Structures are given as C-alpha cells and as structure tokens.
C-alpha cells in the first residue's frame, strides 16, 4: 500500500516533468484572439505616401476586408528576411481581397528603406520607431503576423517567420 503511494507520487512528478520538457516555451497564446484589433495611427514610410497618404489609420480599413498585420525590422535577421518575399508574393496574389500592412518596428528609416528596396515590398508600411503599436498588440518580438477578419477581430497570431503554407491557410480562414 505504502509502496503504491510512493509510486503514485513519482508518477505524478515524473509526468509533470515530462509535460514541462515537451512544452514549447515560445508558444504563447495572444490574449487578443477573438477580440477587436486595437486601432493605431502611424506615419507611412515615404515610398507609400503617394498611394496611401501621409498617415495610416487602421480603423479606416477595419471591417471592410480582412487585414494581415506584419511587424518587422531590418535588424531582425534572418527571420524577417525569410518571410519578406513570402509576404510580398501573398500580397500580389490577394491584394484585391485582403489588405496587407507592415509595421516597421524600432528601426532606423534608412535601414528600413533599404530592406523595403531589397524585397520590393509594395504593400503599405508604417513607421513605428518606438514600437508602441507592438506593445498594444502584445508583441513578443519581430517578426509577428496578425490576421484580422472582415469584422475587425483578431483571428490568429503567428510568432516568427511565416511560411507560405501557413500564410495561405490562415488567409483562407479569414476570407471564409
């Protein structure tokens, strides 16, 4: 009886240990899921001003089409460099149905412009040198991508470089 009791304690502790070892500490659920996307207003980087105006306000675009919000920085290597072409390709394929918006986070303008030039990013990019919007979205670190549905609610948050397959699957979800 007593032996069984000790065995049970060892099993419980061992189980906890096993569970802890196999958990991904980077996998953190965003508290925003299912909640309305926080509004923000940012100055646009120079290449986008002609088409989109001086400033970009999210609220002006919420509730019309789904929105993909991508946080990035030129110093975020290699993750941001991996996903930039993926995002650009998706924007080209979905631009009539989904709005893509990039938030340049805690970066220097020249470095950001160089990055944009390198990948030929044509979706609008806002400039947030302080990283205020990132904190409003509970962002852990660049890159992070948020999917906002047609009703303006956050549906999914992807932490780290996004791959084409995930992007496509999540776009299908917000477009449904």
């Amino acid at each position, binding site marked *: 009886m007593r032996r069984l009791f000790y065995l049970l304690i060892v099993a419980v502790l061992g189980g906890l240990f096993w569970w802890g070892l196999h958990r991904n500490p980077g996998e*953190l659920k965003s508290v925003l899921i299912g909640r309305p996307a926080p509004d923000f207003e940012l100055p646009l980087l120079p290449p986008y001003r002609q088409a989109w105006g001086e400033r970009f306000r999210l609220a002006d675009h919420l509730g019309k089409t789904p929105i993909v919000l991508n946080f990035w920085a030129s110093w975020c290597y290699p993750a941001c460099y991996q996903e930039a072409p993926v995002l650009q390709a998706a924007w080209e394929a979905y631009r009539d149905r989904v709005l893509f918006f990039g938030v340049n986070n*805690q970066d220097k303008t020249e470095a950001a412009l160089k990055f944009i030039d390198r990948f030929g990013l044509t979706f609008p990019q806002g400039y947030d040198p302080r990283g205020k919007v990132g904190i409003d979205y*509970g962002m852990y*670190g660049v890159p992070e991508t948020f999917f906002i549905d047609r009703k303006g609610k956050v549906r999914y948050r992807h932490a780290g470089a996004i791959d084409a397959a995930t992007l496509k699957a999540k776009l299908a979800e917000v477009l449904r």
Partner: protein
Amino acid sequence: MRPLLALLLFLSLALAQTPTGEPPPDLSPEVFKIASQLRCPVCQGESAAESNAGVSQEMRRQIAEMLKEGKSEEAIRDYFVQRYGEWILYAPPRRGVNWLLWLAPAIGLGLLGLGLWRYLAEARRREAELALGEEELRALEHRLEEE
C-alpha cells in the same frame, strides 16, 4: 564677448537634448519598481527593469509616461496585462489554481516535516523497545557485581 559665448554654448547644449516628446533616459526609481514586476517579453528570466531589449526600453518609457499622467501602479500593471495576459506579471495573481503555486513551498515543507516527524517517532519507539527497563538494569548490575 564672453557672456555672449557662454550663452551660445548654453544654447548649443540645450539643442543637443533628446528630441521633444521623448521622456529623458534617466527614469525615476518608481518606473523601475513597476518595470521589475513585469517580464521582458523577448528575454528569458529577465524583468523589464533589467533588460535592455528594445521592447523593455519602450515599456519603461510608457510606464514613465503613464506615471506622468497620474496613473496608479495597479492601472499600469493592468495596461500590460490587457495586452500580454497575466504571463507578463512576475508574481502570478493569488487566486484560483495559482494558489497551488503560492502554497507549493509550504505544502512541500509540511510534507517533509511530516515525514521527518514520523521517522523520528519510529526511531524513538524502536529505541524504547531496545532499551532496558529499570529492573532489568538493576538485575544486570547485580550480576556484574557478583562476578
């Protein structure tokens, strides 16, 4: 001439200050006190007070701004909890399942104490069993003296 130079020097120093809208880098201890209760989102085991990561710097700046607006410590903590969830707090709130966390050390110590107490009680019992009674002792002493 000299006062003019001094004035010019003074003005040039004034111009060298950080751009407007940004709080000065030397934040009050109050800011660090609140930041030390918050996790640095991108670090491992570092608070927003110690970390020099960009996001922690911005958190400290925002804390300073909110303090300036007259917000309470609790309101500022809430601000970050709303964005990051309770994960951002270094001390989990004392309610619900979290009590298990807070009580775990006491429970552990209690179990340890119980085990120790039982072990000692058992040891004492065995000692008493083996020990000789008064009469036995006297009889033995008697025999020793006789021999």
